[in-house]
């Protein structure tokens, strides 16, 4: 779903002549112009945003349902149709509910069918951890690897906690996660993985952004059941993951895919490669 930024921020006349479709994220802050992270770099508008502009944009993006989505907003973001994500920052009350909005960050979902074709044979039928910094294209690659496994005849499932992998709307994935794919949305991974294994008996489960308290146990249970897991994790390298105290996750995966930037080719490491790398001086 492309967003019509000209309608969302009508005060910013420069949006009539600027194409923000390729942007990875668009930020709106009061007292500053619209900024967008485009492939060629940071773009800045001219119109200085007011708090009224921010509120209008937030309500427009959420379909005038900000108040109705307090639970999601108390976690800091609201999933939007098309797999996009509206991050909201502002004044919260003592229960963590949003009172006033001060700034917005819209993370735009880009589907790239074929993004995982180059590495598919290396990860096919294996548990794979995709490691990369924010904005490096982890979710895009994860989605495409899930799609390719489905096309290859695997029964796949997606534990889509934040609604970014499949972007389900009215029970149907808006993004292509391939055939033979079952999606559970909104549940944390610790509950979603056992549920999927029990109910849908998948061969491959895809899930985004590991790091929660029960994630390692849920992945361990999946491994015991012979289910392969495709997952993503914030980080810059396998060592970075170890240093951040998440080394318990690493033995659960057969291969690691390292991403540095969306335009750079992913690097595939086996478990042995990753161990050797750690042992080398």
């Amino acid at each position, binding site marked *: 779903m492309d967003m019509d930024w000209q309608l969302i921020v009508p005060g910013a006349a420069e949006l009539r002549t600027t194409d923000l479709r390729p942007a990875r994220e668009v930020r709106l802050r009061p007292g500053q112009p619209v900024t967008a992270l485009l492939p060629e770099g940071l773009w800045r508008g001219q119109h200085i945003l007011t708090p009224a502009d921010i509120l209008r944009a937030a309500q427009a993006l959420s379909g005038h349902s900000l108040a109705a989505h307090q639970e999601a907003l108390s976690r800091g973001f609201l999933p939007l149709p098309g797999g996009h994500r509206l991050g909201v920052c502002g004044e919260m009350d003592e229960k963590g*509910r949003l009172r006033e909005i001060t700034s917005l960050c819209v993370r735009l979902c880009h589907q790239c069918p074929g993004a995982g074709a180059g590495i598919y044979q290396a990860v096919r039928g294996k548990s794979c951890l995709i490691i990369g910094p924010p904005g490096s294209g982890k979710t895009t690659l994860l989605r495409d690897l899930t799609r390719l496994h489905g096309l290859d005849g695997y029964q796949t499932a997606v534990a889509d906690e934040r609604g970014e992998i499949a972007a389900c709307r009215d029970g149907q994935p808006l993004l292509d996660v391939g055939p033979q794919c079952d999606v559970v949305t909104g549940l944390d991974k610790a509950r979603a993985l056992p549920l999927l294994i029990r109910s849908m008996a998948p061969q491959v489960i895809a899930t985004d952004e590991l790091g929660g308290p029960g994630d390692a146990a849920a992945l361990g249970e999946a491994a015991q059941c012979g289910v392969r897991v495709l997952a993503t994790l914030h980080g810059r390298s396998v060592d970075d993951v170890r240093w951040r105290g998440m080394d318990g996750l690493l033995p659960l995966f057969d291969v690691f895919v390292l991403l540095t930037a969306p335009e750079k080719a992913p690097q595939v490491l086996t478990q042995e490669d990753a161990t050797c790398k750690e042992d080398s001086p």
Partner: protein
Amino acid sequence: MSAGACVALGGLFARRTAEKDRLIQAWSAALLRMEDALDRGDSLPQVLETGGNHQLPLLQTAADMLRAGPALGPEEWLAALPWEDLLDPSERDTLATLLRSLWTPSPAAQLRALHTAQSQWAAIAAASRAKRETNGRLYARLGWLGGAALFILMC
């Protein structure tokens, strides 16, 4: 003829008073329905549509305008609404303040604004009912009396 016009004028005023009272009472009911919709966690267009319940075109239009596109901010939206002529400026202000407040992201603030509007509207509704009972009858009687007086004078 003048006597008849006098009677008709009295009837017209009485009918307008009754119509206005019906509108005020319809808004009272709408505010209660909107409270239910807010409690359910409905989106703003749904809240407005539930409030309107096919009886108040203004609320239906307000919901349709929000659904149609994101271009309107709260002030442009309020200005573009088809406000009923029967409402006084102070009554419109009460409703406009409520509708503006519904743009807040806080459900607690939305409910507070609705409760304030409900209490203000309760006073408006009580005054309207009293006015209908006294003035409505008065206008009709004055029309008849005026008509009768004119008839006698002309005869």
